[in-house]
């Protein structure tokens, strides 16, 4: 991402003039070998991992002074609402913007370690391809099926309790932390074959995505919309998707998702609800035959 360097704003003084050691797992492109590279940046108060990466990009030199291409990473809002900057920081999946250097150094004083998420194909360095995550939202039809965008008066009345139940689920920013931490969500990285057209490859990749576990984030969105008065009009379609290959039955109940969610979304509650709803739906379908 774009990396303005504002180091000159904050010349470190006195005892603050120390450097932070950073170890970055780099990869030049998909399919290439990854390699570790060490960097050092000047410590400043209130730094987060984003500002560390900005210094690295601006310096474009490794710790031993070798000119290197700037490290590549994703970010946008820098206030933990856009979901862009997920990475493995000191081995834990989290957002780089809200990962404060002082805290990280308390955890691990020697150095800060940055790795790309392991469940998504690496594009370059810390940038991964999370299209499968968004495909998951499409699989479960995570939307309210309105007729159109013309004026038909207000939406349905909703009690404060329902709103308070729905709102946390609706703060999911598609960062993918829950997927990175999930033992059932494994990397799917199809490679385009010789002579395969872009369209054919796209279709094959989509198919592979759809056989893989849909993920806690999508299960939770399905529950969000199945609880909405208009959204529930296609509740069955969502449950059908959740009980198909790669659906809710793949969840191993490790409960890692809820532990790593930066927004504290009750993902396991959604999963439990989805499990119950799927069972009821499957039985109902059996009798409807």
């Amino acid at each position, binding site marked *: 991402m774009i*990396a303005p360097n504002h180091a000159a704003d904050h010349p470190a003084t006195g005892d603050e003039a120390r450097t932070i050691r950073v170890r970055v797992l780099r990869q030049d492109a998909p399919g290439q070998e990854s390699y570790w590279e060490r960097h050092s940046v000047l410590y400043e108060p*209130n730094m987060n991992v984003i500002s560390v990466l900005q210094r690295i990009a601006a310096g474009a030199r490794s710790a031993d002074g070798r000119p290197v291409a700037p490290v590549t990473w994703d970010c946008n809002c*820098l206030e933990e609402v856009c979901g862009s900057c997920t990475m493995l920081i000191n081995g834990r999946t989290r957002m780089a913007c809200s990962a404060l250097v002082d805290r990280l150094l308390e955890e691990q004083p020697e150095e800060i370690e940055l790795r790309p998420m392991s469940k998504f194909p690496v594009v370059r360095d810390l940038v991964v391809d999370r299209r499968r995550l968004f495909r998951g939202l499409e699989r479960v039809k995570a*939307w309210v099926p309105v007729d159109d965008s013309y004026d038909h008066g207000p939406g349905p009345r909703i009690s404060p309790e329902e709103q308070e139940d729905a709102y946390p689920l609706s703060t999911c920013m598609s960062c993918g932390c829950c997927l990175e931490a999930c033992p059932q969500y494994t990397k799917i990285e199809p490679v385009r074959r010789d002579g395969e057209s872009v369209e054919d490859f796209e279709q094959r990749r989509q198919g592979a995505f759809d056989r893989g576990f849909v993920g806690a984030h999508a299960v939770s969105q399905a529950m969000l919309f199945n609880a909405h008065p208009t959204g529930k009009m296609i509740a069955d379609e969502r449950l059908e998707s959740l009980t198909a290959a790669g659906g809710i039955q793949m969840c191993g109940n490790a409960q890692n998702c809820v532990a790593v969610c930066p927004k504290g979304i009750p993902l396991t509650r959604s999963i439990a609800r989805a499990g119950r709803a799927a069972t009821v739906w499957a039985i109902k379908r059996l009798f409807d035959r």
Partner: protein
Amino acid sequence: MAQPRVLVVGGGLAGLSATMRLAELGVAVDLLSLVPVKRSHSVCAQGGINSVNALTRQQGDSEWKHFDDTVYGGDFLQHQPPVKEMADWGPRIIDLMDRLGVPFNRTPEGFRDQRRFGGTLYKRTAFAGATTGQQLLYALDEQVRRHEASGRVKKWEFWDFLAPVLDDSGHCRGAVCQDLVSMQFRSFPADAVILASGGCGLVYGRSTMSMVCTGSAISRAYQHGAAYGNGEFIQVHPTAIPGADKLRLMSESARGEGGRVWVPRTPQDPRDPRTIPEAERCYFLEERYPKYKNLVPRDIATREIFDICTNEGLSVERDRPCVYLDLTHLPRQELDRKLHGILEIYEKFQGVDPRDVPMKIFPAVHYSMGGLWVDYQRSATGGMEEGSPRNHQTSIPGLYAVGECDYQYHGANRLGANSLLSCIFSGLFSASGVIAGIQPAGRTAGEEPARLFDSALRREQDRHEALLARRGSGDNPYQIHQELGVLMTRVATVVRRNEQLATAYDEVCVLEDRWQRCAVSDTGNWTNQNVVFTKSLGDMFPLAKIILKGALLRDECRGAHFKPAFAVPGLQATDDAARRHEAEQWCDRFAANTARWLKSTVARPGADGHPQITYEDIDTSLLPPRPRLYGLVGADLIEEVWRERQNAAAARGGAAKAVAVTA
């Protein structure tokens, strides 16, 4: 004839609402964005979205009052018909977003709850927790995903808009864009191109805006001939958390709940703030504004905080301007109950508990009222005519602009919770006009001669190759950007002075020269963020020049544009007659200034690389301009004199009309 095809650039609220409506109307949409659209900057909006509603209506509110508040808040610098149309659409837009599943906060009976925001007396603002922008964006993202699933929308995420493609008659026929992963170029033939690319905060280095808000798309449109309106009007929010990477917003409600703003009287006092005695603290807002104290209007608070750090040298820190926003004297339970959300943000990002330690805050560039100049068609009822191809069309036919990147709705100052409305409204409303404007020659996208696209694509490729091939002066683009940001923040934010603006303009030209010679450190052709940034930096200079030149030429104070040399003080005299005389003079001066300066600034790219500035009259046919007097000494008397004059003018007008009828 082939199905019409429209390219939408930007997937925030404006781009998504336009896409949703276009797809619904059967248009094939290519939706292109620097980031996955769900990660657009609209997610950062917190407070809410304005509209008259059932409750306020019964308290005397109306669409007209919302319109009036918006125009008055914007110091009358916006064409009134589009603003009226937006206010009229407000209730329909909130209803629509409600239907799309936005989890608006609810009353015990299950209606949407509303809160009060700045610039109005009514509880007009619907909200979803403290993440209203995020919630609105997600609802539109979901609808667009639905259209994507049915094949009506194709998303191009991680793509950069490089240039509009214009035919020989200057009509926009598509665009050239670049894949930010593979770095491949591609031309997008389109029957219309809609820019919805947001603000340009990165021209100021750090701001409350997201990292994609470089303004590159609008700068590129401008460099291809699109006019730019009111560039000098940039909103600065008084309280943000300074960060090495970004300035994060700290809501005004902290002061509303009793927070006090202060600095140590000793410059950069090294002591723990909690140990500094009261007598050695300067509560400068309370001292200078005994009536309003810490709750002076936003522009005044911003100006004072800026002034005490920049000109009086009393910043808390030596190397970084900031003042204390102190909540530590307030009971903890009270703070947790009323301010929990924003305290948590401070805690998360600063690693300090603001219940124990005063927060360090500073104003930050927040919103761009200016943007690409766009047209509109006035309707018979004084609003905007739906379905007219003129609506939101830039000065390049076939190229449209909606959302923060247009200049249409907020004049000289934006009211809180009006941006979400203007973004959704402009995207949704303009769609039918965009369609109506298609195929004047019976041709659709792709039927243009290939040479148009080939040459445009080659031009961008050459530019890119040349950038990669530069063997530079050793200058670093990130360093140049940092210097640009510091310069722009120093001279073109809160307080503006002509000599500084003139010097800064020359300095920007020097920075641009340095940019011409700087080299990229990554010369590869795979996910090269370094070259993409360097390119967007180059496109910040035209915007910086528009802002500086517009500000330099505009010798008045209006909304966010404050020039002390042209400020008109309040009334000084104490005896009635003299005071009355002063008020008359004040109104004379106001009338003269209105005649001279109540005009939009319109910048066009000059052949010499400098913006050519002209001024456009403003349609004030619905609301006659009146003085904006909040907080001014003698406001009551000035208002009285002004009203007398208006009434007298109306009487004369009535008499003249009567004479005309008799004759």
